[in-house]
């Protein structure tokens, strides 16, 4: 999944999330394969960004690595270390992070499956 500004969207890319208007109504459904016509229409509706399947555009290196994300997650729990309940919550969050990251990677290769 990748959030991309509309200027970089090309026909053939697929929406990972619906596009909604300012009232939150869906303009374009999740899973839609974008065509030239649809992209033009979205530009006319002032849509600025959309979330695409996979990782179709190289936006430069501003994204955090999964190691960085895992490290930050641990730091956020630094004040509740040693508490068994909070340890359980931390493990669940670590798990979720690993799973979602793995899914994203799978997405990028174009398999979309779990390891």
């Amino acid at each position, binding site marked *: 999944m990748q959030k991309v500004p509309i200027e970089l969207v090309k026909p053939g890319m697929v929406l990972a*999330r619906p596009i909604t208007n300012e009232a939150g109504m869906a303009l374009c459904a999740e899973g839609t394969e974008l065509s030239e016509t649809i992209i033009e229409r979205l530009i006319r509706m002032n849509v600025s960004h959309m979330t695409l399947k996979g990782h179709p555009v190289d936006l430069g290196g501003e994204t955090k690595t999964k190691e960085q994300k895992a490290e930050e997650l641990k730091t956020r729990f630094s004040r509740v270390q040693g508490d068994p309940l909070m340890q359980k919550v931390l493990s*669940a969050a670590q798990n979720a992070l690993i799973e979602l990251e793995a899914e994203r990677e799978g997405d990028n290769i174009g398999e979309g499956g779990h390891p």
Partner: protein
Amino acid sequence: MSTKVQQLKVLARKIQSLPTLPKVVEKLMTMVESPDVSPKDIGKLISSDQVLGARVLKLVNSSFYGFPGRISSISHAIILLGFNVIKGVVLSASVFDLMERSMVGLWEHSLGSAIASGTISRALGLNEPEEISTAALLHDIGKVLVRVSLSADYDKIVDVVNAKQISFREAELEILEVDHAEIGLWLSREWNLPEKLSVPIAGHHDPDGAVKFKDRVAVVHIADAFVRACGVGNGGDPWVGQISRKAWDSIGMDGIDLPKLMRKIMEDLEEVEMFQQAPTG
């Protein structure tokens, strides 16, 4: 206890005026008290302010109310979600208007807490998950008041958080002697919010002290920590706070699959980022 009351009175005097709510919101607050007002009347009133109307629709169409992208009008929203939810949503849509510009992190934290509360409530099968989400949306409203009406104190609190590496709430207690939960309660009384919303606002840091609506308070308390765990938004400091074991047990959190729930919440929270990117938004 009484010193807290006194301190609140001092603050109230210092605050001079509350953040001004749009006329429409003030009208709405009195209107919903009347027993014979119809969803249509209220829908008309809210829609008369186009910006507010659009914001309300955007909020009710977000996934935490369970009808994503399907609510086309405000009167429709009222029928589906009820007056309490609409009241809370209208309030947050106007109050958080201030935040979306100056406190994006807190706005994201609030939206995230609403999403997480909805997911937790549904996983537990609690009644009225929409109202619990709305309480979560408003849970840090006291922080907005401090920022808007006591801005010198707010800056001091931020400095103390950074200097001492303590939580925002601890810093509030140091500078103001009351915390944002207390201030939020006071504010919700000034605004006549229903107890279903004001009690979780007041109790989200002390769920064990709640007498009423214990379930709702516990959910908001836990959602607050989960959203911090996921690193979404900014609640004033970067840390996950201690979850009350008692609150956790009281709503039977051990009965649900925590890793699955956390994964769902982390996925759902991606919507917070999406929220900023609708056209013209």
